[in-house]
């Protein structure tokens, strides 16, 4: 997932995190709280959720709590923003995903260990040449509309994602799908044009199954529909989103809660007061600097898990002097990363040394060669090697103040690191929309700070960020350099390797 365009003033766990914590995150997590609803006077039931690098929520409560969950109860959640768009195939908003995780479901889900498990699917087979995926569906699954889930709904949903008119940011996950066949009511066959290992992960991450024709019959942005444990009962923009229990949910035991209300409260101090005074059972979007305070507050239980979100520092490699890799490496060695973790994330994160973040099992091996340690000597000798005097460099870092404060804070700290070498660095803070246009679209920048809240599979990191075909819409690399395709665009070994 990319930088979300949520306007919330705090970064919070990237949307897929919730998925990660359990595709039925809503089910289990909300169910866990329902049990505690009864003794909320003791306040043990209030779970909070940390931002980006973390993300777990009341989930662990559900499992570690003694006593079995009781059905019934309402949950009040303090959310930092409005969902804005609840169409599961197009939304890029964190809060929307959080709501939708309870409303729509995918064929597969990811469990806590990031492994794929069937959700609406019963199981699946892959052909020997790895281009045909045959998925059999669970029977007797109902949509909120009352109709039963069939293969036609799956076909419709994936084709809707691929419809260029919709402009779904999820389309890239399925661009290798040649055809979708439905030999019988409960079987779907996906034909891929070439083997693509992360295909099932794509189905788990972002392919909500909607009833056939839903996109034409209703405005999905306003009234999403799916097979989830809750259905949307009311949504007042910028105010509240109310979910109510779906009685025909395919897991008979779930959900426990009768309803759940997301209250949109943009100001973190207000959310925190709501939580501590008991008006909210749960809060999302804890600012990093408040983590330790909330952790120690009475009656509040802070849950956090490492996530896949990663913040990166970007060079425009077409702009001298950053077109010289030695200069880029020099700058890299001049940045004190542990200090960024402390100063920006207040210790709630780790230093990343590879394009794939440390939380992923696919993280690159860290060796002495590739570790980007903070070393003034290395930086200075690299500058010397490149024949560039750092004091002659005048540049600026463009960073967005939204959706979270981390970009601007990082830019400011990096500015101080670089000025120690004599570089003259300005920090230009802008709003997200302007940043997107200037950095992402127009490539009108030298240095910037951005993030990438990647995929479970490393393909999501490497292909999207480094393949020549995708460079067109990535700000990370110059379009000409095509680093991964040394023999030209047709020799993209990375692509074939997948």
């Amino acid at each position: 997932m990319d930088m979300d365009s949520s306007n919330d003033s705090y970064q919070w766990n990237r949307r897929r995190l919730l998925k990660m914590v359990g595709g039925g995150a809503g089910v289990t997590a909300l169910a866990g709280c329902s049990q505690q609803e009864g003794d909320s006077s003791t306040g043990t039931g209030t779970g909070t959720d940390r931002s980006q690098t973390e993300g777990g929520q009341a989930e662990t409560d559900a499992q570690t709590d003694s006593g079995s969950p009781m059905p019934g109860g309402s949950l009040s959640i303090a959310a930092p923003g409005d969902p804005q768009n609840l169409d599961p195939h197009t939304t890029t908003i964190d809060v929307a995903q959080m709501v939708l995780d309870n409303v729509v479901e995918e064929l597969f889900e990811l469990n806590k260990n990031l492994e794929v498990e069937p959700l609406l699917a019963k199981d699946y087979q892959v052909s020997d040449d790895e281009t045909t995926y045959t998925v059999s569906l669970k029977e007797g699954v109902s949509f909120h509309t009352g109709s039963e889930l069939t293969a036609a709904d799956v076909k419709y949903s994936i084709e809707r994602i691929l419809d260029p008119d919709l402009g779904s940011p999820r389309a890239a996950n399925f661009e290798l799908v040649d055809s979708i066949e439905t030999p019988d009511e409960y079987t779907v066959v996906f034909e891929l044009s070439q083997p693509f290992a992360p295909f099932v992960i794509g189905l788990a991450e972002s392919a909500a199954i909607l009833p056939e024709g839903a996109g034409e019959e209703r405005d999905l942005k306003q009234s999403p529909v799916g097979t989830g444990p809750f259905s949307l009962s009311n949504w007042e923009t910028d105010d509240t989103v109310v979910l109510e229990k779906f009685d025909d949910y395919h897991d008979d035991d779930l959900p426990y809660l009768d309803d759940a209300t997301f209250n949109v409260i943009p100001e973190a101090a207000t959310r925190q007061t709501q939580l501590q005074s008991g008006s909210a059972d749960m809060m999302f979007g804890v600012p990093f600097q408040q983590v330790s305070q909330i952790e120690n507050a009475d009656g509040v239980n802070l849950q956090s898990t490492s996530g896949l979100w990663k913040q990166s520092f970007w060079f425009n490699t077409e702009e001298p002097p950053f077109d010289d890799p030695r200069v880029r490496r020099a700058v890299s060695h001049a940045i004190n990363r542990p200090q960024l973790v402390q100063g920006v994330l207040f210790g709630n994160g780790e230093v990343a040394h590879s394009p794939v973040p440390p939380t992923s099992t696919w993280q690159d091996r860290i060796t002495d060669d590739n570790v980007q340690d903070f070393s003034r000597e290395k930086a200075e000798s690299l500058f010397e090697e490149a024949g560039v005097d750092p004091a002659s460099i005048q540049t600026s870092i463009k960073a967005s103040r939204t959706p979270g404060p981390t970009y601007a804070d990082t830019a400011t700290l990096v500015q101080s690191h670089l000025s120690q070498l004599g570089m003259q660095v300005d920090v230009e803070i802008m709003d997200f929309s302007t940043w997107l246009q200037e950095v992402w679209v127009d490539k009108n920048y030298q240095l910037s700070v951005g993030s990438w809240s990647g995929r479970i599979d490393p393909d999501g990191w490497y292909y999207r960020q480094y393949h020549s075909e995708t460079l067109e819409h990535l700000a990370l690399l110059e379009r000409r350099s095509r680093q991964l395709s040394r023999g030209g665009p047709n020799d993209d070994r990375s692509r074939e390797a997948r």
Partner: protein
Amino acid sequence: MKLYVLKRFVQYVPVLIGVSLIAFSMIHLVSGGPVRTMLGTQATEEQVEQVRDRLDLNEPLHVQYLDWVSGVVRGDFGESIQSGKPVSEMILTRLPKTVWLAIGATLISVLIGIPAGIVSATRRYSMLDYAATGLAFTGISIPNFFLGILLILMFGGYLNLLPVSGFVDPLKHPIEGVKHLILPWMTLGTALASIVMRMMRSSLLEVFNEQYIQVANAKGLARELVTNKHAIMNALIPTVTIIGLNVGYLLGGTIVVEQIFAISGLGRLTLSAVLNRDFIVLQGVLLVTAFIFTTVNFATDMVYAYLDPRIGYE
């Protein structure tokens, strides 16, 4: 009088056209567009273009503007680019909340500001005057985001007396509704009361120096009578102007206070429209705001005529 009212309404037209033109061009001058913001970083330029085409955003600007104007004339404010909801509906659900905020804050500012101003002016250089001017100075100086959070921590957190977020319609649930509004009212009202108080004080002091007041004093009228009967009415004129401007400012969106207290009023609609570059929504909101502001100023002018019978509008 009738002719005057009619004239004033005719004057609305150029004002509103001007406002809508400025709003329209400003949002297009700023970098960043609604579709890219909506689709995020992973959408390709191609996808962005397709969506722009679908939303008619690739039409020349003057065509887009005229399209919008011709809709407005027929009462159709268009649909939000971000959510697809009709803008008029969005404004109608949010306006009452902001109106409640504005009315309460104005009442507080008048109920505190005017008496405090009078007390201050009539007992100039006394301890009371110093206390009142000192407080007013503090009230103006405290930014409302800071005061709001202090009040939240105090009344919501520490004392746990009042709800700190959300809006409940006082017409449906009077007690709950007012409870939800007390802290936002206090936050907004403090600064406004200070402004009103200072204006009341200075204009009353000015009136006290007028010759007719000296005459009244010289002929031995009681001090209270001079103040109440002769001075206050005249001193109210500049104060009413300030109150009118305040109301306009409040109705234009109390962005910060709505944000802190999680009230989904016009202010937050404006903010998210700006951040999302949803200019259809922004134009609608600004047009309505401009209309309200002009109307409030008009009403203020009418109040002058009541306060000072010499002022007539023919």
